[in-house]
């Protein structure tokens, strides 16, 4: 059973996300038509916020893995780096795309370069894209791992910046509705769907990262086997 845990987590996560979407469309209450330009589009919130939560978990794993590799040359650290960057890219793109769709409907523009939250999260996603694409362009080796883990560590500074950005410089992105510095509260059933979605995305991202680590491990074993063949 333990060997199948990534698949179990991925399946549970997918099922949970499907349930979240069902609840978001059919059970969560509508928002006031006076408070929003496009009230129907607000339901994308149930996808956007949980995926952002999962992305921040992935970026934290990326930071931990990068640090473990850079300072300790720990191979588990490198696997975490790979898994965190891939999961961060997947979730980051979900957040950015859903945000752009909502922005188009609500603000009339998909993106605002002057908003700190939009920029910092967009940059985190670009950093993850840089790490994933860049790594695939290079042969594996300590030089490659050192360089990308350095970017993984420095890039983490964007995570707290992303967190505090709407608390300090709220420009266009809505302010927080929970936690320290929150501007207001949301309805109980809305909160339930968001938290359920966050749990589902957490399971999905955990399964994704475990799967990614397994693939990295297999790639390394394959490379060692090829080297043995090279040596005759």
């Amino acid at each position: 059973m333990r060997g199948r845990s990534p698949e179990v987590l991925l399946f549970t996560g997918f099922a949970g996300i499907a349930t979240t979407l069902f609840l978001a469309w059919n059970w969560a209450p509508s928002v006031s038509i006076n408070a929003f330009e496009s009230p129907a589009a607000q339901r994308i919130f149930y996808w956007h916020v949980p995926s952002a939560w999962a992305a921040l978990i992935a970026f934290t794993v990326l930071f931990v893995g990068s640090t473990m590799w850079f300072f300790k040359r720990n191979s588990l650290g490198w696997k975490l780096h790979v898994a965190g960057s891939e999961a961060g890219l997947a979730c980051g793109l979900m957040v950015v795309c859903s945000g752009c769709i909502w922005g188009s409907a609500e603000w009339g523009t998909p993106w605002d370069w002057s908003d700190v939250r939009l920029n910092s999260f967009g940059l985190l996603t670009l950093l993850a894209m840089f790490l994933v694409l860049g790594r695939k362009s290079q042969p594996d080796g300590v030089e490659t791992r050192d360089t990308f883990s350095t970017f993984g560590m420095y890039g983490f500074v964007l995570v707290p910046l992303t967190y505090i950005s709407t608390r300090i410089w709220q420009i266009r992105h809505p302010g927080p509705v929970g936690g320290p510095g929150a501007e207001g509260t949301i309805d109980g059933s809305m909160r339930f769907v968001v938290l359920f979605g966050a749990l589902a995305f957490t399971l999905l991202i955990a399964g994704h990262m475990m799967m990614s680590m397994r693939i990295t491990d297999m790639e390394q074993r394959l490379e060692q086997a090829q080297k043995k063949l090279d040596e005759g």
Partner: protein
Amino acid sequence: MGDALLSLKGLEVRRGMGVVLDGFSLDVHSGDVVVLQGVNGSGKSTVLESAARLLPLEKGSVHHGSTMVVDFEGRRHMPSQPFGLTLQSNGMIGDETVEDHLQTVCALSDMTADLTGILSSYGLEHRRHDRIAHLSGGQKRKVAVLAGLLPAMISSEPRLIMLDEPDTGLDDNAIASLVSNIAQLRMAGHGFLIASHHATILDCATRLHDLDGETGQTQDDDVVWEAIGTQSPASFLSTRVGHRYMRHTRAGLARNGLTGVIVVGVLLTLFNATSVEDQLWLVGMVLAVPFAVGLSGDPVVYILREHRAIDWWRAHVNRLPSADLIGPLYGVVSTGLCSLIFLNELRWDLVFIGTAVLWASLTFVRFIELSTVRLARPNAAFVRLLVPILILPWGLLVDYAASL
């Protein structure tokens, strides 16, 4: 015996995921010619590049004379004495002339020299004012080997010379000149670390090392090299070389300048500046151009990627060649012209801000490009994905400038 010219102490070095050197130690003293031999992939180049501070160490340290130049904790110090280096790749810029490149090598030792004699001995005297790109492969290799030997040829003090496969591409006459030079320089007290398979080079060694152990050889040379250099302190060398690269290659115009022209053209195509009344848009158009010029990156870094020239420089200096004045110059010119084009007046406050924008974006792109220099394929690393981090600060500056 005094300090060795080179001491490698307990080196562990990885390349790729494999450990190439494990607990490797070696000393090169004045008058030594240590030749590393072994099959391909045995680690000869790794020894040389570690000694030249080009590879990170997992364990151990490298000392030039009494100075620790790099260790496993990443501490790096400049060698107290200049040294000669020829990498497997020639490490030269194609747009440099032979004379300029070799005089730059002399300048790294704070010296100058009349190179006529040594260029003649390698059959290069008639090529001294030619660009390196115009030479044949063998001639380029001769220049690269001479650049490695020069620090010893111009100095009466013992110097360390490291040559990686210097014989590759050289004809028999050139190899004979090289072996003769090595023997004469050895007699003058210089020390050599050479990686080679060539029988003639192996014959001139005083110690043959196969990375597991070494054997001594007796040499009976008696001709001593007479140093040809004269003192000539070289100040601001990195800046002067960076600007010379700019003059010779026109890379600044080709990359940054043309980018600016294209952005101006696009803006003029999309907008009729006389009909735009919003100051934010007008100022944004003016400052978009220096921003785009800066984002094109430092042309010197682009040039230095040719034939591992950047590694050759990294081994010799802490500060790579840089055309420091290009940023401010292009900033003033591009912002001033755009101010005239879009605002019909020369706004010096905008010129100042635009220059700062160009300099900052150029410096940022240079920083991230140099951060990936250790990668096997730095040009394939998608570093430009990180550039949008500058858009928000640029937007805030435009907002501020429009309020002036």
